[in-house]
Each structure stands twice: as C-alpha cells, then as structure tokens.
C-alpha cells in the first residue's frame, strides 16, 4: 500500500462526504464489499505457502512470540482506551490491527464503527512509523524477538527488510512467520473484539 495515495483517497472521500450526496447507500454497499475483501484476503493468505512453510520450519515453540505480540498489543490498546475514554472493546480491536492499517480500518468502519475505523487507520499507520523508528535499536539492545514486537503484521512485508538489516538474514524467516501469523489473525480478532461490546 502506498500511504500518500491512501491518504489522498481518504481525503477525497471526506471532501466528497462533506460536499456531495452520492447516490449510494454506503452502509449496505460497504457490507458486501467487506465480504468480497475478506474472501480476497483469505485466498491470498491461503495461497501464500511461504507463511505456513516458515511457521513449520521455525518450530511451534516460536509461535509463542507472535501470540505474545498479539496478546500484548490488544492488552496495551485496551489499557490506552480505558485511560483515554474510548470504549475498551473498540480500542482493543484497533490494537488487534497489529499495524495492518488498511484491513483493520475498513473492517471496523464497515462493521458499524466509523470512529474506531478512523482511529484504526491513524493508529496502525503510527505503529508502522514507530516500528520503522525503533526496530534497529531494539534489535541491537535486546535481540531479534524484540524487534518483531512493534513490527506486528508488517514483519512479513513493510518492515521485513529493516528487521533483516538490523538482526541478520537468518532472522528473516522468523520475521516472516511472525508477520504472517499476525496477518492471519487480523481479520479474525478485529471483528471478534469489536463485537465483545455488543
């Protein structure tokens, strides 16, 4: 995804929403488009055998790392929501985006949570920026596992080159496996968490 283009499209949408009356019932349209989106994401994640191969090769005990990243992200986001006055289940769902801002935001916005969708977009873009800024230091001071934490789902694509450069080529497989598992979890945990609030 190209962040400048994405922000341009978003701003275009906001301007259209302020000044135009489009002849669509956007709520109903978006529900069906969301279904199409999930089907496309599912096929792509299933067809990418590198993810499953990586997970098999690094061993199942390693899966504790991405699972801990998932649990920690959701818990941290829930605490931030609690302190900041955002409904906890919505904040937790935003944290469950694990840095995959496009998918988490559209799932939330199209599940009837437009405000959480906006927060998911901004928050997960910020997470990616934080990851890019902190990975080299984390890798050097604390080791490769800690470099995978801020990266979240992006460890399989956007932040993968930086992780490899900071921790060595051997860590690439781990980073890919962690990012792939977290990516698989995004379309499952985001809708589940946000529904916890009823």
């Amino acid at each position, binding site marked *: 995804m190209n962040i400048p283009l994405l922000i341009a499209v978003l701003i275009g949408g906001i301007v259209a929403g302020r000044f135009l009356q489009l002849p669509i019932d*956007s709520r109903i349209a978006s529900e069906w488009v969301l*279904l199409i989106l999930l089907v496309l994401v599912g096929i792509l994640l299933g*067809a990418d055998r590198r993810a*499953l191969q990586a997970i098999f090769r690094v061993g199942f*005990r390693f899966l504790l790392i991405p699972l801990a990243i998932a649990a*920690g992200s959701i818990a941290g986001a829930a605490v931030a929501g609690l302190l900041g006055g955002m409904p906890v289940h919505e904040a937790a769902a935003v944290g469950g985006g694990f840095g995959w801002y496009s998918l988490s*935001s559209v799932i939330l916005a199209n599940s009837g949570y437009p405000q959480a969708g*906006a927060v998911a977009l901004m928050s997960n873009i910020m997470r990616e920026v934080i990851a890019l800024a902190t990975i080299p230091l984390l890798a050097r001071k604390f080791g490769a596992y800690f470099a995978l934490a801020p990266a979240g789902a992006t460890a399989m694509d956007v932040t993968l080159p930086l992780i490899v450069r900071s921790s060595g080529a*051997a860590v690439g497989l781990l980073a890919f496996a962690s990012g792939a598992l977290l990516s698989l979890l995004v379309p499952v945990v985001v809708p589940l968490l946000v529904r916890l609030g009823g």
Partner: protein
Amino acid sequence: MDMIWMLAALLAAFLVGLIGKPPKRLVTYIEYALTAVIYFLIFLMGYNLGRDDMIFSRLPQLGAMSLAIAAAAVIGSLAGVFLVHPIVGRYKPHNEASER
C-alpha cells in the same frame, strides 16, 4: 450481515487458496483486485467520516487517541515478548544459515 458468515467466508476462502493452489497469474490479479477494493473502502470510509459531523469535529482528539493506542500496543507487545522469550529460548539459525 452476521459476523459468523464473514468469518466463514474468510475461512472458506483461506482453504480455497491453500488447497486450490491458484496459479501465480491469478494470485497477481487477486492482489490487484484486493488493492482496488481496499482503496474503494477507504474512500467510502472517508465519505462516511465527512458526512458524520460528530466524528469530523473530533478528528484532533481521535488523532491523539490513535497515537496513545499505537504506543500502548507497541509497549504491550514488547512486554509480551519479554514474558515469553525465556520459554522460546534463543533462536539458533544453524540449519537455515548453512543452507544459504
């Protein structure tokens, strides 16, 4: 639409991708389609935000909340890794390293 159907569709699609082994060219087309769908949904999201005066006027607060959640999620994930990394043990890349 019930969320169960969304998750069922996701799982079914995952299995189709896993078992069906779509050819590389089809995967490329699906990636293009996904990108187009995401941009369309982002546009719709903006459209709904623009029409919603309440959210529109609260964008600065929502931005601050976003930053707080991003920072808290990163800190939480680091804490999670800190807790489990002794169980996982050091990663010894002996096999992978010698294969390359």
